[in-house]
């Protein structure tokens, strides 16, 4: 379906698709099998100017928005959700800097990120802080002209591969919601090491690991914005990043749908291609509807967020919730359509099903998304004046 994209948006879509097909497709199975970080592919994306789509031109970006970024992520995810995760996570990791950082900080870091020279990562999750972000325990103590960080972040995407890390730590445990701050920690900072890489069900080429801060000393100007802005910056980051995860889910589901339809047209049982059977047709039809609905929602929300609108939390959560749930179902159904073949690693859909699960979990679980939407509905309706 035509979404009336501008010429530039079509270029981005074509380019991302070309790279995905030429450079990602031939290696996706091997990357997954060997759990190898897709460094080469990311270099191609960087050379294609696709890393700084939503970074302002002042920092070497293309000066476009989250929508354009979503278009690119969708095309990459269609071929491999793991590569898409590595690609998109760098955006996530740089949002705090973009949203809260000083001009000087943006100049220092965003040019490197926009060019793809440095990958970024977002450090929030800890063993005590998953859905409950306020459960973080990593401390950042002001000591003279420095901050000293202590603690461990868990399950961070691009751990070890990124150069630039946006890390949230407690600066004042007594101040509750104002007790945390974001910092930029760079690979190589003293006291900053990486723990083991996790072995995952899916998106296996994506690097997921621990960030270990052991008296990690960083200059005081590394704080993003001001002390106490941590949780606010985190929420604002997620508002921006959620449509991107939705786009990832839409792309992944699209890839699964295509695999299923192609297979159903070729697989002959009982004398003719199985796509002729209503049971299969109905499955495919439902899958197609879901994918299109997800796409339409993500595009609409991404545009809305780009417009600078203030109250985007509810729709942003929707743009993550629906597509990710739908992608889990669509990829599972794709395996079903392929039957026995779908279960074999020789065919791409079992990987797509394994990849899909994480989308319902990371960047806030589907339960939390529902919380957010429910709470926003409550607030929204409470604001309306009684007639």
């Amino acid at each position: 379906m035509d979404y009336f994209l501008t010429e530039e948006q079509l270029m981005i879509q074509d380019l991302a698709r070309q790279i995905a097909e030429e450079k990602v497709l031939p290696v996706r199975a091997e990357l997954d099998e060997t759990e190898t970080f897709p460094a080469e592919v990311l270099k191609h994306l960087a050379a294609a100017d696709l890393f700084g789509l939503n970074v302002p031109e002042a920092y070497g970006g293309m000066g476009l928005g989250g929508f354009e970024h979503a278009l690119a992520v969708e095309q990459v995810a269609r071929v491999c959700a793991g590569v898409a995760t590595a690609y998109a996570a760098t955006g996530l990791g740089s949002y705090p800097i973009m949203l809260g950082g000083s001009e000087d900080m943006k100049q220092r870091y965003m040019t490197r990120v926009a060019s793809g020279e440095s990958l970024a990562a977002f450090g929030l999750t800890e063993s005590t802080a998953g859905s409950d972000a306020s459960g973080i325990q990593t401390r950042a103590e002001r000591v003279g002209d420095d901050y000293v960080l202590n603690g461990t972040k868990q399950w961070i995407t691009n751990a070890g591969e990124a150069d630039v890390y946006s890390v949230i730590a407690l600066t004042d445990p007594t101040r509750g919601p104002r007790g945390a701050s974001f910092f930029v920690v760079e690979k190589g900072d003293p006291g900053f090491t990486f723990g083991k890489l996790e072995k995952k069900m899916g998106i296996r080429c994506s690097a997921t690991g621990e960030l270990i801060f052991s008296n990690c000393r960083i200059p005081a100007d590394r704080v993003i914005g001001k002390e106490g802005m941590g949780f606010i910056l985190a929420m604002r980051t997620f508002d921006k990043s959620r449509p991107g995860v939705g786009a990832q889910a839409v792309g992944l589901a699209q890839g699964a749908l295509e695999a299923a339809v192609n297979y159903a047209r070729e697989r002959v049982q009982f004398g003719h291609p199985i796509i002729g059977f209503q049971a299969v047709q109905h499955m495919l039809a439902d899958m197609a509807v879901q994918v299109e609905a997800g796409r339409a929602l993500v595009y609409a929300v991404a545009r809305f967020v780009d417009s600078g609108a203030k109250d985007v939390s509810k729709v942003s959560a929707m743009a993550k919730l629906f597509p990710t749930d739908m992608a889990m179902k669509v990829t599972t159904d794709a395996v079903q359509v392929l039957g026995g073949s779908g279960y074999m690693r020789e065919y791409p859909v079992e990987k797509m099903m394994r990849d899909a699960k994480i989308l319902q979990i990371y960047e806030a679980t589907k339960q939390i998304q529902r919380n957010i939407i429910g709470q926003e509905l409550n607030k929204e309706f409470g604001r309306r004046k009684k007639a």
Partner: protein
Amino acid sequence: MDVIVCIKQVPDTRHVRLDPETNTLKREGVESMVNPFDMYAIETALRLKDEFGGTVTALTMGPPQAEAALRQVVEYGVDRVALLSDRAFAGADTWATGYTLAKGVEKLGAFDLIVCGKQAVDGDTAQVGPGLAERLGLPFVAFVRRLVQVDPQSRSMTVERLMDDGYDVVETPLPALITVVKEIGEIRVPSLKGKMKAKKIEVPVYGAAELGADPDSLGLAGSPTRVVEVFAPKPRGNRVRLEGSPEEQADRLIEALRGDKLIAN
């Protein structure tokens, strides 16, 4: 280093067919693409630009729609393009093509190197490269698989060229003309900035008059060879199906091959 790359827009050969009723080539609806081997030539030129700076110019001879091929290579980083197009060029065989391209090269000005793809997948003759070198009086090395050393200052280059039984290491002065093969390296991806430039770039078109070309050397009139007949290849193959279980099929095949005296008893 200033490098010129000669490219050709070709039909997507998977789809060209002979219409069995009229015995004519069915060209409608067949997509065009940049000759795949020429993309390796483009990549070679771009790598030289990465290392030494300079400009990369893409040149093609073709009908007006060949402009699309030129715009496509600008996406990858080519700086300048030129299209040689004129009704008079039509029907050219490789000899006349070489003449026309040589006039085009003269028009473009000074250069250090010309790079061509090994062959065009529609004509498959691999003759334009060497013919062009001959006309321009350039030293020539075909089937280059690796640039061992390039020295723009001392105007020389050492390359490895593929031979049937291995490879030769050849030193050539610059300027020169080389054709390249796949082994030269992986083709890069286009960039967004490249795509934007490709949209906007002006494509100068030079016809016979602008090139100062001798009409007797152009197109069909200038081609020493001409096609006198086009026909569909005889379908080959006896198409005998060997049925049965894998064991039975294997048995039948071996029996048949023994009968054909292709394997020993």
